[in-house]
């Protein structure tokens, strides 16, 4: 009984044989072109390239190579600031003015020369447009009304930055060296594309006008970014001719591609995949310390947590050691202070450990010997959910019944901004600037605890934790001119925060792990995510 024509079967056999002969199985490694750097990373949060609006680590890495800043943090020694577009700068005796002398002969990709007007315009528009990154500058007292006077050009290559209120100029310099809002834009090119009063914002969302080592050729959102070398770059042309960044969200695909050599750099891989690669001779795993902190936050809107004994009990119900040993490898390193590691002002960890008995005693003393029921919010991603699960289990040992509510970052931090949570596992705290004030401002400072104040950019406000004494000390330390007195103040703040049992309880400091193929040289991941690719090359 014949169901199929015999010719069909012959044809299929011939096609199969031809395919097998043609596609000989190969274990040969892939290889990216020697003069092109191929980066795989998630681009889902890359919504805008405009330095006034671009939030997220991914966009900082793109813009750091397309734009320049006045000065930079040294990638190998983050406490050192090095000249970039400004070849030198001076701080006035009263510490209220910083004067920058720009490097002559710098041109933008358009061929326009860099002037102090470009610098002033670039920084002013961050404040006047009032988009995502404006809060960085508003925190220093800049307003749409005062920026024309406080950020100004004095001559073609002299830019003057007046500080609207007393602060540590080092902090401002750090912001200028790390904030993604501090990239200098080619004013002429941007204004050619301006629509109404938008100062080029719509155009700059999808285009760039910088002076960086690479020019943006193509950005297809959620797909690919192509950059080519800018031959007239003031530091000399980059070693790579082209940089290709491809959107890849699947960790295992990233792992296979970087192992096989089809990717040079893989970012955003899951911890399990990174762990599997740590012994591979094909790749190097680079750990980059970020300034942000993983924490457990309590809301003081919840009456239970207004009792310091309950907060102390919760602090003792966090399994710091277990979490840092089991959950945090490849995500972070232990840190129990609201200050980033490595700062001179930072005290050693206070040494909190899981202590259920003591926590039970404190709860009983506070009248909660039978515990209580509470909600615990966490992102669904690792390591947040793992920390939340651990916390749920240790809270239960003291009779606290925590119901975990999971959500996206948008949902979890949205609830925190609205002060509608009980306990929350989160991450935050500025920290890009290598200055104690950066983390303290984000995590502890809360100048106005009223609901109407809506200071949702301060995580201290989000938790409703208010300490007039801490606020005053933070302000005092920020303005202190004497380095040793400033150091002492920061140490006092940390001790006081411990005594007052702050509502944000740090567990770990974020690290980011980047997998780099073994033949890539001089890729130095930057703690502020402004990794520059100018010197990167491949040795084959």
């Amino acid at each position: 009984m014949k169901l199929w024509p015999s010719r069909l079967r012959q044809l299929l056999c011939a096609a199969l044989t031809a395919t097998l002969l043609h596609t000989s199985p190969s274990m040969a490694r892939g290889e990216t072109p020697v003069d092109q750097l191929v980066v795989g990373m998630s681009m889902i949060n890359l919504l805008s390239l405009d330095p006034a609006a671009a939030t997220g680590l991914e966009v900082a890495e793109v813009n750091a190579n397309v734009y320049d800043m006045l000065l930079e943090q040294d990638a190998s020694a983050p406490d050192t600031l090095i000249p970039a577009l400004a070849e030198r700068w001076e701080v006035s005796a009263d510490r209220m003015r910083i004067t920058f002398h720009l490097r002559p002969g710098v041109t933008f990709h358009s061929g326009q020369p860099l002037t102090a007007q470009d610098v002033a315009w670039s920084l002013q528009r961050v404040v006047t447009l009032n988009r995502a990154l404006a809060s960085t500058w508003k925190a220093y007292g800049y307003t749409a009304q005062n920026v024309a006077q406080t950020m100004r050009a004095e001559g073609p290559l002299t830019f003057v930055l007046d500080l609207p209120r007393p602060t540590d100029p080092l902090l401002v310099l750090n912001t200028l060296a790390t904030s993604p809002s501090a990239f200098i834009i080619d004013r002429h090119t941007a204004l050619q594309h301006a629509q109404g009063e938008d100062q080029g914002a719509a155009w700059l969302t999808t285009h760039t006008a910088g002076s960086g080592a690479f020019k943006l050729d193509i950005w297809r959102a959620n797909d690919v970014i192509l950059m080519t070398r800018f031959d007239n770059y003031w530091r000399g042309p980059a070693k790579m001719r082209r940089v290709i960044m491809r959107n890849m969200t699947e960790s295992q695909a990233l792992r296979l591609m970087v192992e096989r050599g089809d990717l040079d750099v893989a970012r955003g891989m899951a911890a399990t995949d990174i762990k599997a690669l740590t012994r591979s001779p094909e790749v190097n795993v680079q750990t980059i310390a970020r300034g942000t902190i993983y924490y457990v936050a309590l809301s003081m809107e919840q009456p239970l947590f207004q009792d310091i004994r309950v907060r102390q009990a919760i602090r003792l119900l966090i399994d710091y050691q277990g979490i840092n040993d089991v959950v945090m490898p490849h995500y972070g390193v232990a840190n129990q202070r609201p200050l980033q590691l490595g700062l001179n002002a930072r005290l050693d960890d206070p040494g909190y450990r899981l202590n259920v008995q003591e926590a039970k005693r404190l709860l009983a003393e506070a009248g909660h010997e039978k515990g209580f029921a509470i909600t615990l919010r966490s992102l669904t991603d690792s390591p947040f959910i793992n920390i939340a699960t651990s916390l749920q289990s240790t809270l239960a040992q003291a009779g606290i019944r925590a119901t975990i509510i999971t959500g996206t970052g948008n949902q979890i931090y949205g609830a925190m901004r609205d002060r509608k949570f009980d306990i929350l596992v989160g991450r935050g705290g500025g920290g890009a600037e290598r200055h104690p004030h950066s983390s303290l401002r984000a995590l502890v400072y809360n100048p106005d605890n009223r609901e109407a104040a809506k200071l949702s950019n301060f995580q201290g406000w989000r938790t409703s934790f208010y300490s007039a004494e801490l606020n005053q000390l933070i302000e005092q330390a920020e303005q202190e001119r004497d380095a040793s007195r400033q150091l002492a103040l920061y140490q006092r703040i940390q001790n006081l925060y411990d005594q007052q049992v702050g509502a944000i309880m740090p567990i770990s400091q974020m690290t980011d792990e980047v997998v780099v193929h073994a033949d890539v040289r001089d890729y130095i991941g930057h703690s502020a995510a402004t990794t520059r690719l100018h010197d990167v090359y491949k040795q084959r």
Partner: protein
Amino acid sequence: MTSASVSLWGSRMAGTTRRSGSVLATLFGLLLLTFFIGRVMPLDPVLAIVGPDADASTYAQAYKELGLDKPLWTQFGSYLNDLLHGNFGKALLTGHPVIEDIARVFPATLELATLAIVFGVLAGLPLGVYAATHQGRAGDHIARLFTLFGYSTPIFWLGMMAFLVFYAWLGWAGGVGRIGLAYDGLIPTRTGLLLIDTALSGDWEAFRSALRHILLPAIILSFNSVAYISRMTRSFMLEQLSQEYIITARVKGLSQRRIVWGHAFRNIRVQLLTIVALAYGGLLEGAVLIETVFAWPGFGQYLTSSLLLGDMNAVMACVLLIGLIFVALNQISDALYKVFDPRTR
């Protein structure tokens, strides 16, 4: 014109008007539902734009710029008004007009889904016919096992395994994306379908690269369609093969091939059209998991990313497009019914 032809013309016009009205009502309902579901979802597009650390005034400004300060009905009304003027709005994800984004991402999915449905039909139909003609025998059991596997295997897992074997171990498949990185940005876009664009540009190396990149995801994507089509084909064929006219054909001494393909299969073509159209529609909706594994910049990824951001302009346009796809596929299969089945003319 005779009164009979006038009446025929009139009834056709009435039918067309009724169908158009029904299509428009469906699309409107779809938009209405999506809009209000989008607004009650606990996702905040403003936060996606300004980031978690923005202060209240920045947040309020972005909130207003998105028009979220207006009542829901006003928002929906102005959206419909824009839509009627051909303005689908801008996407938060890309900063581009949504219509431009869809014109960019949809061809990627169209190309992948079309190839997948071709594989699905080429493998699913013969498999179903084979299973039906060998009912109860080893071949049938193997075919049924295969369909069961096709239905029950998570496509994400299958994609990962195939990627591991055919890309990482054997090196047969291209990597992720639609084409090798060396060709990215170098092929002029004419149709958005890379296999066609590379062929039109005469760059056969690029064509080979695009083919190497699309084959594996298309085959994996077709797996479920193969299972669905073969299972339905088997079922339809079994029904036909038990009919009296088949027995008569056997008694008359017709060859098995003639009975199966010339008689039984001929009679199930119309039903299969619906099955294939449904499977194709499902694939065009966006194969988000396969697109994620293979970093395929298609419609599914675009829709999912937009949804996670709460980017309702993009989501609404995508939903509208999906609605139109299903309407179009229904219309096409209706038209093909008339070709294959004279009784419906």
